[in-house]
């Protein structure tokens, strides 16, 4: 029996791989410099900025009304929320009243947008993990929402619907009926989706206990939205710093419950999103029933000049607390517009979480955080 001597001159060294900027799992243009020891990641450094369009700088050069379409481009999957956050900031600065029907139109448009955004999120998440079919199902439903959006405001992605003082166009009764029709159709679809994907054994095994974020880390890294709630913190801007007509509406705030693994794992974040879609359906039904008659937009001067001052408006976007910090110097143009987005802070935690996980789990981690590249770079 011969003993095999260790081969001379052989050694293992860390491999450095560039994931992205064009990679199916990055959901847009962003890049990771991944150092791996075989399948185990020792470090994944995010490299962002590929989609930096200096939306904040543009804000200093256009009027308040003119800036609304630019806010659409911050997050193309949830443009409505950026519209709303900016308009809320401008309205707070100038003390503009929003018409009541306008508020309801805003909430309806936003919640439809939230469902559409979450559908993309949970759909592509399944696709990242290797489940192709649910993605197609999710996109089919999103298509209907896009059609409804087109009916409401004429655009399918970048809406420019919410304006200072209200909304651009009223939601007509015919459209309301079609929204209800969609909701009736969509509710059973969520259950179907759960049977297809959420309860799937392979899917669960890929996610349970993977990339666990503790509540302390979630707060320290300022994770927001479903990522924060997935870690068990019950915090939703709609409920806790109420705006618009949300205080009058009855809805639950889903939080992570360690459904299949550990509290704060990738599955919890996914599961929060699925349940949020159901809550959005509830909100939509209430809004459609409660919508009062009246103008969709209140009277706002064409030359919009808020007095000097500053304000910070928050909305609960699909990717969490979206903040617009607007400073006015009393002129027609904002002095400074700052956009604080959920994806930016979610990205910053990846470096910490990626240490010691497998390459395949990195994909699950990125998908579960639902980061959206244009929103990171702005």
């Amino acid at each position, binding site marked *: 029996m011969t003993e095999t001597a260790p081969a001379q001159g052989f050694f293992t060294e860390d491999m450095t791989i560039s994931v992205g900027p064009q990679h199916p799992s990055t959901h847009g243009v962003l890049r990771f410099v991944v150092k791996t020891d075989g399948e185990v990641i020792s470090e994944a450094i995010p490299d*962002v900025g590929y989609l930096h369009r200096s939306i904040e700088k543009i804000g200093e050069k256009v009027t308040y009304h003119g800036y609304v379409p630019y806010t659409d481009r911050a997050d193309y999957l949830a443009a409505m929320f950026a519209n709303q956050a900016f308009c809320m900031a401008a309205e707070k600065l100038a003390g503009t009243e929003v018409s009541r029907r306008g508020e309801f139109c805003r909430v309806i448009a936003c919640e439809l947008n939230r469902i559409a955004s979450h559908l993309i999120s949970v759909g592509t998440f399944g696709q990242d993990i290797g489940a192709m079919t649910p993605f197609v199902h999710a996109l089919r439903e999103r298509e209907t929402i896009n059609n409804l959006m087109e009916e409401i405001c004429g655009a399918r992605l970048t809406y420019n619907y919410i304006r200072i003082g209200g909304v651009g166009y009223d939601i007509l009764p015919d459209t309301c009926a079609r929204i209800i029709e969609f909701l009736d159709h969509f509710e059973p679809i969520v259950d179907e989706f759960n049977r297809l994907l959420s309860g799937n054994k392979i899917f669960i095994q890929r996610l349970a206990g993977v990339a666990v974020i503790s509540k302390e880390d979630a707060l*320290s890294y300022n994770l927001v939205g479903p990522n924060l709630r997935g870690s068990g913190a019950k915090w939703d801007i709609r409920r806790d710093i109420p705006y618009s007509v949300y205080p009058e509406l009855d809805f639950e705030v889903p939080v992570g419950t360690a459904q299949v693994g550990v509290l704060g794992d990738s599955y919890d974040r996914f599961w929060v999103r699925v349940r949020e879609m159901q809550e959005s359906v509830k909100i939509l039904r209430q809004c459609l029933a409660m919508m009062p008659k009246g103008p969709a937009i209140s009277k706002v001067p064409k030359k919009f000049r808020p007095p000097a001052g500053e304000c910070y408006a928050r909305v609960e976007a699909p990717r969490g607390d979206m903040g617009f910090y607007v400073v006015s110097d009393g002129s027609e143009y904002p002095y400074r517009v700052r956009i604080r987005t959920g994806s930016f802070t979610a990205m910053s935690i990846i470096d910490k979480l990626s240490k010691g996980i497998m390459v395949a789990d990195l994909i699950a981690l990125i998908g579960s955080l639902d980061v959206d590249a244009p929103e990171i*770079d702005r």
Partner: protein
Amino acid sequence: MNAQELYASLEKLFPGKVSNFKGEAMEPCLNVDSGSIVEICRFLRNAPGYRFEVLSDLTALDWPKEEKIQIVYHLYSYSQRHQIVLKADLPRDHPTIATVEEIWKVANWFEREVYDLFGVIFEGHSDLRRIMLPEDWVGFPLRKDYVEQEEYDGISTQRAPLVEKLLR
């Protein structure tokens, strides 16, 4: 705790370090001495009754007329449900302030962004690199007196107005 009480207690604990309280603003704000930012932030983060667990936003404002760059910290406490805005004034020609990365991890990226776009140096920061722009970019775009370089890496950043182009 409301903002007024919060300011009064900070004035007592850090005499001379906090000033210029604006309680009537939409988000009450106060000025903090830039040298004691870490000390005050650590207190606000950890002291019972204050507990600002979250740094919602960290950004900067450029005021060329007053020759200053202002760093703005938006703090929020989920447990106590109160908020406060801290502002630290830095000289415009050499803006330097200590990092709060140790207190809120998210400050790492926020500060990188402010460094990238405003040119503020955060002392003690673990990884102060540009985040949005390429490393060899010249200037800090969000400063008010920023002039875009004419070309970057051989690519022109200027574009002839469309009308002129069509008439040619």
